[in-house]
């Protein structure tokens, strides 16, 4: 059996840096001979004799079923490239800015010759960190390019503020929770982050703590404050809710360069610390930096809560709702308003409730093969148009191997993988799509367990 040639697909809007990245890939000394298929009439500055230009040709198969669209141009060109496969050992496809990655990915499932000779190593999506916000709400293409990605490069980070970058990354993370996200300037990135990802390396994709496969943080905002020893006041006006959950955590002694990482891991601790039995506090009562959750009972007008700080340091405050909704702020003992040095919004605001989300399911227990197949067939037949990608490792009753699968819309490809080693047998799968119903997916999946 000849090994399959890996194929990387580059997507991203015009101006996001695809051509810059492609030129980097071609000029980097990685020892690979790369054939390039270009749908965008970009300027490849590198002397590479296997650059093939082609216009996108979308073919609907099976009498117009939207889920069975493939890319005719890729079938033709890739089919031909396979006739001279000793000339190169890697293929890059650069799509147009407006390309829907669906038909590209589906081509790798639908055409037998391509399926047998090539493997879709990864979809790399470039995002223009400055301008994407202008398109993300009304462009299906941007959303789909993000949803389909295995790797997302937030490019041109030099043009945006750290806060804007945080918000953007959080937003992208809420749409696609398994993609690796890298921040880049001039599309500078180590090649092993984007090439030879090993396809769809499930272990890597699913190594993310399953809790974070759920983009549902129990808080919408957090801010980092530098505080001295003393008593501070957190002031709320009346807002959309009569209560608000907050948590305070001491995360460092002083501000330092790795603050962002520290802050992110604090957010993870805050998620893990969250439980339904918060300590209820009335106005006038005190919040302490134990990392536990308080439920603040708000008055109809101003409500003041004390913050007791017994040692100077860097503190992270997490709030269930965005403080702006309550015109909330923090004051020191002198009545001066304090600004957070870093803030992060976990849902930028309510209107931005993403239609595209990821739903991760991780459970122990063994699956009944028949029931699972029946459920999946039903799911893909009814919801396939809205499911962009899915991946998973499954534990079937009576099977000694792990079962791995991936899919695009209604197309599904699964096979037994290596045997389960000395590890807990479990199921881990992820759906990325539009209007996914988390409860329904969970219930449907759980019903397939023996």
């Amino acid at each position: 059996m000849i090994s399959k040639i890996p194929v990387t697909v580059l997507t991203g809007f015009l101006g996001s840096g695809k051509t810059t990245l492609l030129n980097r890939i071609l000029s980097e000394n990685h020892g690979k001979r790369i054939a390039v298929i270009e749908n965008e009439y970009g300027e490849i500055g590198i002397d590479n004799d296997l650059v093939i230009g082609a216009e996108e040709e979308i073919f609907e198969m099976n009498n117009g079923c939207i889920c069975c669209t493939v890319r005719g141009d890729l079938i033709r060109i890739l089919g031909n490239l396979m006739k001279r496969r000793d000339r190169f050992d890697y293929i890059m496809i650069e799509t147009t800015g407006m390309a829907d990655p669906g038909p590209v990915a589906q081509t790798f499932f639908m055409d037998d010759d391509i399926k047998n000779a090539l493997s879709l190593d990864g979809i790399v999506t470039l995002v223009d960190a400055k301008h994407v916000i202008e398109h993300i709400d009304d462009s299906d293409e941007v959303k789909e390019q993000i949803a389909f990605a295995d790797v997302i490069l937030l490019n041109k980070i030099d043009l945006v503020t750290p806060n804007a970058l945080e918000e953007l990354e959080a937003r992208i993370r809420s749409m696609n929770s398994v993609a690796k996200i890298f921040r880049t300037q001039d599309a500078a990135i180590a090649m092993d982050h984007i090439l030879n990802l090993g396809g769809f390396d499930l272990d890597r994709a699913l190594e993310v703590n399953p809790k974070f496969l759920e983009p549902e943080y129990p808080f919408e905002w957090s801010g980092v404050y530098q505080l001295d020893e003393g008593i501070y006041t957190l002031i709320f006006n009346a807002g959309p809710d009569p209560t608000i959950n907050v948590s305070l955590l001491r995360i460092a002694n002083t501000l330092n360069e790795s603050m962002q990482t520290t802050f992110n891991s604090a957010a993870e601790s805050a998620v893990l610390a969250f439980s339904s039995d918060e300590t209820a506090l009335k106005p006038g009562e005190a919040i302490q930096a134990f990392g536990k959750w308080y439920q603040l009972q708000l008055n109809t007008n101003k409500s003041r809560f004390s913050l007791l700080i017994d040692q100077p340091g860097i503190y992270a405050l997490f709030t269930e709702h965005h403080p702006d909704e309550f015109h909330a702020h923090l004051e020191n003992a002198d009545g001066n308003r304090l600004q957070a040095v870093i803030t992060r919004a976990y849902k930028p605001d309510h209107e931005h409730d993403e239609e595209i989300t990821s739903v991760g399911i991780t459970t122990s227990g063994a699956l009944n093969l028949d029931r699972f197949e029946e459920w999946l067939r039903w799911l893909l037949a009814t919801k396939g148009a809205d499911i962009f990608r899915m991946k998973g490792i499954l534990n079937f009753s009576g099977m000694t191997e792990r079962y791995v699968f991936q899919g695009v819309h209604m197309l599904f490809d699964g096979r037994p993988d290596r045997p389960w080693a000395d590890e807990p047998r479990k199921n881990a799968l992820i759906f990325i799509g539009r209007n996914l119903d988390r409860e329904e997916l969970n219930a449907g999946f759980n019903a397939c367990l023996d």
Partner: protein
Amino acid sequence: MLGLDLSLFKRDVLNERWNISLEEHIIDMAWSPDMSHLVAATAEGRIILIDNYGDSAAYKQIGEHALGANSVSWRPDGLQFASSGQDGKVQVWDGVTGKLLQLIDADNDWVAKATYHPQRPILAIAAGRSFKCWTETEGIIYESADHASTIADIGWSPDGSAVAVAAYNGVTLHYPVQQSEPRKYQWKGSSLLLTWSPDAKYIATGEQDSTVHFWDVNSGTDAQMSGFSTKVLELSWHSSGQWLATGGGNTICIWDCRGNGPTGREPQYLRYHFDKVTQIAYQPSGHYLASADIDEFLLLWEPEKHDKIISATSLSAPATCIRWTTKGDILAVGQQDGVIETFLIKNAHV
């Protein structure tokens, strides 16, 4: 292990004559009408002119198409031949010396095929999405509107009055000689190759979605045959127009196209390929059928008599192109590894 025991078959039917190695995937070949030359095109783009001396051969590279060649075709008088490629070019060559005579620019598009009229020096060109016709004296004499995709295949009707064009959304019939309105045989799918029945009654197409269509040329109705295990890239008509052989998997089907056509009739099955069939070609007389597969076998059948193998031989790589001479006594087999081998058929029934 599954496989063919070659010792079971008559060994004296397929007689190897000469073989050469070009070391690149053979993508197309064509015999000159007088069989003195065989021209070959490789996936890398080389155009090779081979002098056939019967028992031996001499060959030379006469030119190339950057990015890869796609097709070769002889002018009916045998004095020139044309090649096409992914470089958007059609080149016309002297059939004896191999000298480049013409360079036709097809607007930088993928030229899937350039093929001569069956009787006259008119060249039909699949230039990207557009279909064009060219003559040496007048240049481009016909140019169609764009088809729904890059053209996958074109073919002259047996009398040369029409050219069928296969692309996404079915087949279009163009009349480049009388310059009348094209006729559309619409179907929502991607047609990959087409072939006219020799009696011009049908155009058969092999499809991306693993079906074969039979278009009734006069009525414009079609019959769709399904059940193939993969997309169908192998079609060959019997010279009478009564039978069509199809690949698209391990089994060769021979469809009965007499009378009301293949609909509702069980095809004849030729089943001794143990891996995917890569090439099928009826001998011009229709007596023998040659076929090849991924397992590197070349088989010879007499489908009208029975569904058993007449002769078989093992190649050094899967065949990518098999071409009978017009007379039908010699078979040229081009392979994935660049080897071209010729066989003389004993008692050829020509």
